[in-house]
């Protein structure tokens, strides 16, 4: 048995032990998301346009993450709608910046790893980078959207006569708590993922100016910055949509 199989089994067991049936659902959704991502890479390598494939698999990933384990109530629908809106906005933001910043493909620091390869393999590395960036933000926005929408729903249920402006304020409060922690998750994820790179850059005695301009560092930092922007936007969009929903409901009841 390989180390990865044994760790996966341990994870599945622990998920079941701590959360019962919910844990099993969550595990299955992880497996499905993994398969979707793998299929996406295979399709891109096969020559299918990268951004198109990723857009569709992104919607599937969002639907699976949000609906599996959460019953299909109205606030779940709002979370889903908000994540799709934000994903589209992110795509519109990422495409021009990525084109201008030229951080696709590989960097000079990568050269040892890829020296055996001929890089002219006839794919669009820029589109691949854009797809990877958009997909990497989805996990964080799905999590935040669920947290904001279910938190606000809880408040509406406890205090049905709440003023719209108060609800908006609550959304901001919940959002702030989530944001602080999500930023930490994202940044620690980046530090962890790039520890070796940071050590290497330090050993190469890279100047501050090099950090600001090198392909690898700018690329990795932008990945986290995009995710942070997406999280801020999702908090705002989700709470506005919840307020909008409540306002519409009240109008109907009158």
């Amino acid at each position, binding site marked *: 048995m*390989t*180390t*990865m199989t044994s*760790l996966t089994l*341990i*994870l599945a067991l*622990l*998920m079941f*032990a*701590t959360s019962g049936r*919910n844990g099993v659902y969550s595990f299955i*959704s*992880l497996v499905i998301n*993994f398969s979707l991502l*793998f299929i996406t*890479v295979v399709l*891109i390598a096969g020559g299918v346009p990268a951004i198109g494939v990723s857009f569709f698999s992104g919607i599937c990933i969002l639907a699976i993450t949000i609906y599996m384990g*959460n019953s299909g109530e109205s606030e779940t629908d709002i979370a889903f709608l908000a994540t799709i809106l934000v994903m589209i906005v992110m795509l519109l933001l990422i495409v021009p*910046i990525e084109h201008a910043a030229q951080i696709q*493909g590989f960097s000079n620091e990568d050269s040892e*790893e890829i020296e055996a390869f001929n*890089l*002219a*393999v*006839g*794919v669009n*590395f820029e589109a691949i980078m854009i797809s990877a960036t958009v997909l990497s933000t*989805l*996990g964080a926005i799905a*999590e935040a959207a669920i*947290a904001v929408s279910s938190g606000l729903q809880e408040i509406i249920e406890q205090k049905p006569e709440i003023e719209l402006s108060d609800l908006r304020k609550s959304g901001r409060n919940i*959002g*702030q*708590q989530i*944001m602080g*922690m*999500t*930023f*930490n*998750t994202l*940044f*620690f*994820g980046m*530090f*962890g*993922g790039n*520890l*070796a*790179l*940071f*050590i*290497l850059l*330090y050993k190469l005695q890279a100047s501050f100016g090099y950090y600001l*301009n*090198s392909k690898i560092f*700018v690329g990795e930092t932008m*990945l986290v*910055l995009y995710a942070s*922007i997406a999280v*801020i936007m999702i908090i705002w969009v989700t709470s506005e949509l919840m307020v909008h929903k409540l306002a519409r409901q009240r109008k109907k009841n009158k």
Partner: protein
Amino acid sequence: MKLTKRDFIMGLLIILSGCLLYFFTTKDAFLYKQPILRITHVKNGETKGTVDEFKNHDQQTNQIITGKILNGKNKDKSFKVRNTYTLSKGMDQKFYVGQQVFVNVYQKEGKKTISISHYKRDTYLLMLCWLILMLLFIVMRSNGLRSIVSVILNFILFLIVVQLDVMWNITSFFWIYAISAIIFTALTLILVIGWNKQCLVTFAAIFFGTTTALLITVTAMWLTKDKGMHYEALDFATQAPKQLFLSASVIGLLGTVMDAATDIVSTLFELKRSQPKIHFKQLFNSGRQVGKKIMGPLINVLLLIFFAETFTLAVLYFRTGNSFGYTFEWTMSLGMVQAIISGIGITLVIPSASLLAAAALGGRDR
């Protein structure tokens, strides 16, 4: 929402600051020691088709770039340099008029020649940072800016730790990162929650979750004799790769475990505040309910981040005739294992955070 005169002025200021920053970063060449060339003229040569041994079709184009140096000794001097780019742009890029590039200047037989070092990207990086600050300000007002302080502090600490690691250069450098992880946690929690009982409970839960997850991982690695773990595939590794991998895992693990633990503990403390008579058992169960809800999405966050990082390399492997299994093993498996370790940490922190918080809050009233 009504727009007041103040909002209007604010909006104007925000746009103005963005324009100023953009203008400044495109003209900041004087701040750099390395010469920067501003491209004034590009002449594209003929495009050649290329085919590699795996029948991948690509195109290669030569360009002759003319430009002016913007800073340093050779300021205002004009130079010509050749650039080759491919259609896929794996490690090269197509240059356009108006772009700025870092160059190296060589003295050769009394004549100066240059070579392109790297593209100038600071404008885009800084504009993105500006966008985040402005969005934070618009959506959250000044509170939003505070939440970024802990991130910046952690980043500075992280750089110091990396520096220490390189300077001391000890064999078991894993402990440097393990100890700094504890400091990161304490610092972040005190900044986010404040110095109180809630902070202590959260810290204990995180410590337990992270350590146990790590122990389980190391045991599993030892029992399976690291089968299928290609530590040598770790990018940029300049130190013992397995220890480097474990250090990286601890830091990645910490972020998610912290997220889960704070969610659970703060919900339980809030619950106790609104319903002072609540029992130990009810508290424990509510904690697990919260945990159930956040577990799946949180593990997904890391899965997506780690997987996305491997996209480019995986495509390259597939295009050059490697099998699914081989590509997975050499490009994705380490990132996957990191995500799985974090998942184990999250599942462990759910019961421990619920138990500790419930014991701290409900123990006396039993």
